[in-house]
């Protein structure tokens, strides 16, 4: 599903990623591991084409970084659910509106949006809080809203960049369980983390990074 070939991103200050060649498979749950600053987030940004490679290429399904247009990047992002450590919710919108955003921007009908968002909010256990402003929620709740927003558009891939980084262990566990459940339903998940306790009992594929490169262990 995702092919990285000699993928290099050079920020000019020594940071970035270097010569990454690997593949990510459809339906897999892949863990991207490594210390802070090792390039996990950069690799994820390349996956949703927020940054284009300086050298090498990445291809995701039919989209290839060497010939992708701005319009195609939007299409790609509409097929990917992105979850960030800092949630990135729109704080002046309520829970429902935040989750509905991807559907609103792609022009779904009011009825379809209400039906889909209600189901998703129920799945993440936030149906009761739909009226609350995103800014008033706890960290765990915010992350569950972010997950709901990521899956509401039925993406083929979830990119979760340190989704438990700002959460207490209990909330982190809830979020990880949700991601496992999403993956079990067939959606590919790539999760960057350095929370080794959280993932110690899982047998998901692990990719290690250090200083911008993949590490063979």
């Amino acid at each position, binding site marked *: 599903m995702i092919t990285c070939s000699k993928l290099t991103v050079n920020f000019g200050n020594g940071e970035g990623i270097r010569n990454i060649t690997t593949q990510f498979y459809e339906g897999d749950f892949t863990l991207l591991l490594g210390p802070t600053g090792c390039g996990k987030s950069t690799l994820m940004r390349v996956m*949703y084409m*927020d940054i284009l490679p300086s050298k090498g290429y990445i291809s995701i399904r039919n989209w290839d970084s060497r010939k992708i247009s701005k319009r195609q990047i*939007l*299409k*790609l*992002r*509409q097929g*990917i659910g*992105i979850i960030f450590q800092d949630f*990135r*919710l*729109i704080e*002046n919108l309520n829970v429902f*509106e935040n989750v*509905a*955003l*991807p*559907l*609103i*921007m792609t*022009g*779904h*009908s*009011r009825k379809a*949006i209400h039906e889909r968002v209600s189901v998703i909010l129920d799945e993440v256990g936030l149906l009761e809080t739909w009226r609350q402003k995103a800014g008033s929620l706890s960290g765990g709740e915010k992350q569950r809203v972010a997950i709901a*927003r990521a899956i509401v558009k039925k993406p083929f891939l979830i990119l979760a960049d340190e989704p438990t980084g700002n959460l207490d262990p209990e909330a982190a566990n809830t979020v990880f369980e949700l991601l496992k459940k999403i993956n079990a339903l067939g959606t590919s998940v790539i999760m960057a983390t350095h929370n080794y306790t959280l993932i110690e009992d899982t047998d998901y594929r692990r990719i290690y990074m250090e200083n911008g490169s993949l590490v063979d262990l």
Partner: protein
Amino acid sequence: MRLSFILKQTFINLWTARLPALVAVFTIGISLSIVIGMGLLGYKAFTSFDLFQDKFEIEVFLYPNLNRDEITHIQNKLADIHQIKMINYISKEEAARIFKEEFGEDIHDILDENPLPPSFNIKLYKQMTHPDIVENVAKRISEFQGVEDVKYHKEILILIEKYIRLITLVGIGVILALIIAMNILIRNTIKLSVYARRKQIAILQQLGAGGLFIRLPYILEGILEGALGGAFAGFLLHLSFQVINFSVQYIFDVSLAFSPLIYTVSIITGALMGMFSSSRAAKSFMYLFARDDY
């Protein structure tokens, strides 16, 4: 749902930056009222000049002793001048009749004879009433055999030409300066709005929102500010007309008629200016600010 979301965002943006928005509306109103006021003045000046051009005539006085053939010959030569639109022959008798009409007395009763010469009244094409062209035509006609004198209001023509040029230059200058000022003003309020919402814009971009979906609330904000400014400009012009009419009613027997169309024109002009300025500003600042934060 998409429309209601965009409208909601527009009003949130306006409310968040309400003070700069209010300042923009007032300043747009004042600037636009000056622009439209000058436009109206210019229009009035041009229509007056147009009317003058329409009525402008050259009088060609002939020697009294010319016979019919000689007069026809002069008329044919006048018809050959391509700047001339209309030639009207006024015989001695016709001239006496006009004299009686204008002064109420018969020329024969005053002088026992009719000293008024036969003449041609000539009208030129509108675009041929420039003082230099008129002077050339008059000079050419005065050289015709049988023509005693050629008269026209040369001084008025030169004066009007001079003022029209001045009004046009000053008007265009002031209007351009104010349009640039309004553009900068709207651009700045949009810049503030975009800056205040830079994180939201970055989030929408990451979610795959199209440029227009992100920009539309800011464009609508600009349109609203422009339209409100336009309505305020209409109100200021309405007020100015009333003040002017009240001030001059004791001096002149004239009054300026305020057409409700001025409200429509100023609202539409303001909205169009708002749309133009805000769409450009939203586009440029959206990419400038949104990338800084995430």
